[in-house]
Structures are given as C-alpha cells and as structure tokens.
C-alpha cells in the first residue's frame, strides 16, 4: 500500500502520490490544492487556507490526517480564545483534593509540589497536545480569523519555536512538529507576519465539472440527470447577488435531499419546496423565489416546452 510506505519514509512524498492519496479519501482536488498540500508536507510549513464558507477548507485537514494515518487535533478559534484554552491548564480541583489527601503524610513540601505539578494534573489543550503527541499529528486551527489579534501573535510564537513554556515544569519541546493547517473565512485580514509563516492557498467555489464530480462521489445514489441539473443550478445561483452564497456543503445536502425524494429531474415545485436546504437567509430565499423561472432557464434546467 502506498500509504503505509509513507509512514515509514517520511521524506518520500511525491506529487502524484499526494494526489492519489487525497482522491482515495474521497477529496476531489485540483492541481493547486495538491501542490499546496505536497509542499507544506515537504517544506514542513503550515498551510493557510482561505476561501468562502462551505468549500471544503476544513475537509482538507481531515482528509490529510486520514491519508497520513495520523490523528487530527483540532483547535476551534473564537473571539476571546486565550492561551489557557489553547495550551494547557492545571486541574485545580484535583490538585486541591490531592493535597487534602496527603495532608497528614510525612512528605516534604517539595515532594508534594512535585506531585501536584506532575503530568496527571496537567490538562493538555490542543496546542500542547499536538506538540507532545506520540506521532506527527495534523493540527487544524480552524477559523483563525475569529480569534483576536493577541491570540494570533501568540500563535506565531508557537508556530516558529515549537516549544511551550510552563512555569512550574519548564519548557516542553515538540517531539514531532505537527502538520499545521489554518483556515480562515476572511472575515478580517490576517497579519502579514502570520501569512509569511505559512503557505497560502485560496479555494474558491468549484466550477461545474468539479462540483459534479464531488456530487457523484458523495451521493452515488443520485440520478445522473438530476445531479447535473443541481450543479448547473448551483452555478447559476452563485452568480446572483445573495447575502450568503451556498457552498459545496449545501449542494451535497440538497443532492441528498432530492435523491431521497426519488426525483430524477429538477422542476420548479421541487426547487421551491426544498429551497431551505440551499439558502439560509430569508432575503435570499425571497429573491430567488421571485426569479426562479428565469434562474431555472439560465441553468438550462427547465425548457419552455415543459411549461406548456
């Protein structure tokens, strides 16, 4: 097997192997995605992935972890995320309980301290987990644009030194440097410094061919004509000025929904009834409903003859 070979000889990735690895795991790529993944593995650099919501940014990390037969450690960013949630924390309750239990024993203060600041009282958060993992993990730092700038600069430090200092224990160096993937929805611009540490990849909405391949792969039960029409319709939909454009995730949901209704082609009533799967904003829904016939026509789904 290709993948088992990869584990033993870490250095020997090759572009073709990466491509087939990704597609084996069911991820449809294009050249720039596989090149980015390949080079980030080879050069040991973090990969920063930007793009609109729902185009499969997070999926890359999951697929990579699977393909490399390693674990995925995920750090979900949010506003107010700070180092104790990202790095480590002492288990205070346990420390206090432990001290209570050994209150009357003859241990010296030094010994007691040594125990309560030991490994079992340390709660590892994702970043610490990642650098002390027994094998090289994939570390996914999801939606980094949601965290605040303080955290971003803190992250820079970790990403360049690969060591974490805990005052009570000392400095912990990374056993294996994790493979890092950062994702961002571009709700705010990331700092130049962070960009410079990473390789950059932008994933856009897929074109028709790519989307159709993805649908075929993920919803194998779907009727060929229906699937094609769904993808065409989505492509047209994304040309509109909507508040929130639907991503691949929505396409797949919709394809699954329609195929479980055992439809074999798209028609106006079906679209109207299931529009909620695709559009998640009432203004968008209203706008699309009003121009539905036109939309279907431009998508080539619904010829005028059907209407008669």
């Amino acid at each position, binding site marked *: 097997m290709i993948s088992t070979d990869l584990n033993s000889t870490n250095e020997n990735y090759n572009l073709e192997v990466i491509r087939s690895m990704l597609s084996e795991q069911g991820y449809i790529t294009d050249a720039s995605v596989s090149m980015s993944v390949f080079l980030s593995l080879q050069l040991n650099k973090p990969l920063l992935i930007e793009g609109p919501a729902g185009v499969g940014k997070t999926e890359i990390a999951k697929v990579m972890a699977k393909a490399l037969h390693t674990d995925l450690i995920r750090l979900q960013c949010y506003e107010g995320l700070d*180092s104790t949630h990202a790095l480590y924390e002492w288990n205070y309750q346990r420390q206090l309980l432990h001290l209570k239990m050994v209150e009357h024993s003859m241990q010296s203060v030094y010994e007691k301290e040594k125990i309560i600041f030991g490994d079992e009282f340390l709660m590892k958060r994702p970043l610490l987990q990642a650098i002390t993992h027994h094998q090289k993990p994939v570390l996914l730092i999801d939606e980094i644009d949601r965290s605040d700038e303080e955290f971003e600069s803190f992250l820079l430090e970790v990403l360049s030194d690969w060591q974490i200092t805990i005052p009570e224990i000392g400095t912990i160096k990374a056993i294996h440097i994790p493979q890092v993937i950062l994702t961002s929805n571009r709700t705010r611009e990331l700092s130049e410094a962070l960009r410079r540490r990473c390789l*950059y990849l932008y994933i856009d909405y897929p074109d028709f061919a790519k989307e159709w391949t993805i649908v075929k792969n993920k919803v194998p039960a779907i009727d060929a004509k229906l699937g094609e029409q769904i993808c065409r319709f989505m492509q047209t939909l994304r040309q509109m000025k909507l508040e929130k454009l639907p991503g691949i995730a929505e396409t797949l949901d919709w394809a699954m929904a329609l195929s479980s209704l055992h439809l074999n082609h798209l028609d106006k009533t079906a679209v109207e009834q299931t529009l909620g799967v695709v559009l998640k904003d009432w203004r968008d829904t209203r706008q699309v409903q009003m121009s539905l016939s036109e939309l279907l026509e431009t998508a080539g789904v619904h010829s005028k003859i059907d209407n008669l």
Partner: protein
Amino acid sequence: MITRQTSMSANVVQFCRFLRTHHFATSVEEEAAALAALLFVDCSNRQTFRLALRTVICKSRKELQEFDKLFDEYWNELSKAIDSKVKTKAAPALRPGSKDASFNALKSWLNGNRSYEIEQTASFSSQESLSQKDFATVPSDEVDELMRSIKALSKRLAAHLTRRYEKSGKNNFPDLRKTLRKNMRHGGELIEIAFRKPKRNRLKVVVLCDVSKSMDLYATFLLQFMFAFQQVYRKIETFTFSTSLQHITPLLKQPDFSTTLVSMNNVSDSWSGGTRIGESLNKFVEEHGKRLLDKRTIVIILSDGWDTGKIDLLEKSMKYIQKSGKKVIWLNPLAGYTHYRPATAAMQTAMKYVDVFAPVHNLDSLRQLTKWL
C-alpha cells in the same frame, strides 16, 4: 539549504526580486523556501514549476491573482534577454554587441524603472503633512496614502478597545477568597471551588454617519474609516442617514473596500440628499434602539448638524439614546475650524444630550478618538 549557484536558482532569486518591485512581500525566507520547493518538483514542466513557485511565494489572494501575469512577463522577458541573438525592434537596448546595455536594461526593468530613494522620501513627507490636512482638501492622488493611514489607525483604536477590559490573560483561575468563603460551612474543607474569569470586553459601538450633501467631502473618508474599523473591531454596527436611515454593517463586511463601495452605491439612493437627522435618529431608536443600545454601547454620530427635519423628534431621540447608551460622541467635521460655533438649531438641541463633542476633519482628530472611547 542550497549553496551552489546554478543558473536556475539565480533566476528564481532574481524573479523574487522582480516580484518585490511589484509590491509582493517576498522576503529572503520565501526565496529560500522557493528554492527548497524546487528540489521536490519536476522543474522541466513549466506548469508544475509555476504552480510550485506560486504556492510558496504568494501570501494573499491579491498576490495569487497577480502572480500568473508577472510570472509570464518575467520568464518571457528573461528568455529574450538571455538569448542575445533574438533581435527585437521594440527593445533596441537588447541589440547584440552592447552586452552591458542589455544587462542594464534588464536590470532597470527588473527594478521597475524607478529610483527608490526619491520615492521613499516623498512618501514620508506626504504622510507628515497628511495628518494635519483637512479631509475636504485632500487631492485625489494622496487618497491612497490617507486610506492606508486610516487603516492603521483603526487597527490601533480597536486594539485599544480590547486591551482596556482585559484583566488577565488566563481564564478559569480559582478565586481563593470566594472559595474559602463558600466552604466555611464545610468546616474549612475545600470542596467547592469558585472560579474567576477575566472580564470580557463587552464594549459595543454604534456609528451613525450623516451622508447628506453637506457631508459629501467627508463621507468617503468617514466611510473608509468605518470600513477599516469594522474589519478590526467586530462589535460595531454602522448606519448611514440623510433623509432616511440605512443599516450598512453587512455591506462593510466585505473583503475589500472597493466591493463595499460598489454595493453601497447600489443600495443608497438617498446619498447626497437633504438631511433629516431627527427622523433618522427616531427611526434608529424605534427599529434598533432596544436591541443595540445598552449601558455598554458607545454611540458615535458623525454629522455637521445641518438639518431640515423636525427638532422635537431629534430631541426625543437624542434623549433616549443618551439615556440608554453608555456615551454619546458627536463628531463634527466643521468643528475643526476655529471660528465654528454649534449654532444650528439641531446642533444646539443635540448638544444637551452629547457627552463628547469633537472635531473630525483630519487624521489627527481621528487619532484623538482614542481619548474618548
């Protein structure tokens, strides 16, 4: 890393320099990474070669979009320059026989045909003068410069906002005092533990910007300011008003300012119209007041106070806004003039309910905002 200077690696380095002249942020680090990357890919295939360089060098979407064009430009030009037998009428400097000339031509072309020292001093001095310059008098070629300054400034403002309420970097710290108190009933045995958390920054900002005809000269810059501010500080809601009120927060949440401007133009029919501050503020209070205003909200009103609307409505709304908000800041571009007095009826009425009244006509005055927030 690579030490041997092959012509390939020399070219890649030169290509990186070329990109730098086109405003790419390509440092030595990227050059090294690019060379390292080329070890792993098939360089004879131009597509692969290009893709590898693009992956390593580009650091933003803008750079990604420009890369292919520059790549072609460079490598095509290079092949012309290297092969001196190729005679092109368009570039007489490349004529065989004058090797130096062709080298110099290539060099100056690579450097983007410009002299750096001059440009740098020029930009420095312009920044100096810009911060004092009234927005209304900024010539169009200095707008870029100003926009950059505004961006940097709003970043600092936002950082200031967050830092103030950050009490400690650590979360979930046990609160010893509370813990002891709580456990008194257990005879001092520590069973329940109380925690304390740093106070999260809950400060919200609501911006109401006048975009009527009289504010025309300032609106673009104020918009840019609001845009930049929205990018770095999330708890902010922005409205524009002239004769009616418009909620523009979603429009400001675009990746770049030009997109924002385009979509703004599509929706705003009331731009550069008359002003009815009272009606607009009243609409704000009625539709959004309950939801947006609380004691942690700072309301910033950007307007010159020239008003043709109803005064009693203005008074009523201002009263409500001040009562339910934390602070009301009225920024008036006209207040920068020394002889300005808030003499209009609207301004005089509003003054009673304003906590801070300040000028906003140049960068310096925007910078002063830090003081009030």
